[in-house]
């Protein structure tokens, strides 16, 4: 199976002669796949961090309510 292609635009050439369609090398394909995996791992880590932040926020609000603060007072504290 052939690899995906890339568009290379050589701006030193006259208009109309600049664009080339070139097949990615196996090394380029491997690098893209590695980068995609790395990006996906980073995205999952970011989602996890955001979920933990949200959970901590909700737990904090619950604690403030248990201490007797009203919703308005909590909202004022959180800005």
């Amino acid at each position, binding site marked *: 199976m052939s690899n995906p292609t890339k568009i290379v*635009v050589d*701006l030193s050439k006259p208009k109309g002669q600049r664009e080339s369609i070139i097949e*990615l090398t196996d090394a380029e394909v491997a690098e893209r796949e590695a980068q995609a995996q790395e990006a996906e791992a980073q995205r999952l880590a970011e989602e996890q961090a955001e979920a933990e932040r949200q959970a901590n926020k909700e737990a904090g609000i619950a604690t403030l309510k248990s201490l007797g603060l009203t919703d308005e007072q909590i909202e004022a504290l959180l800005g």
Partner: protein
Amino acid sequence: MAYELIETIEVGSGGAASIEFTSIPQDGVDLVCKMSLRGGTGSSQLLQFRLNSDTGTNYSVIRLVGDGSSVGSFGGTGNTASFLGAISSSSDTASTFSNSHMYISNYTSTTNKSIGGDAVSENNATFARQDISATGYTTTSPITSILLYPINGTLEQYSTASLYKIY
């Protein structure tokens, strides 16, 4: 300050893994790239870019992001490429494309470069992603090439990228 279009590229049938502008003329002050993009795979497509074919750990980036229901900020240093931001993907409404914008200041200088970016995917739903990004690129060379590529799969047909110089 005046914009001058250098080139516009439209992806043809079958898509493309990347678009690369090479031999960028060195007679401008700043560079601007305006893009309308759709990636063919995944629900969280991002556009990456690399300058001067530099695969060294010379890119640092900070991104402010939203997705229609939450916001966040992400960043990193010592990267081998940088992120510009979200682009539309196969999970978004059919035939929709992102708006993406890249600004490179003083691109002919021999000092480190600052790159600003913003991007928003288009989707007829609550989930549509927005990004503002800032990249620092450590270099002693003028910018002579820009490589644009999605983190997954290919750019779909009718995606476009237009490169302008400002002087």
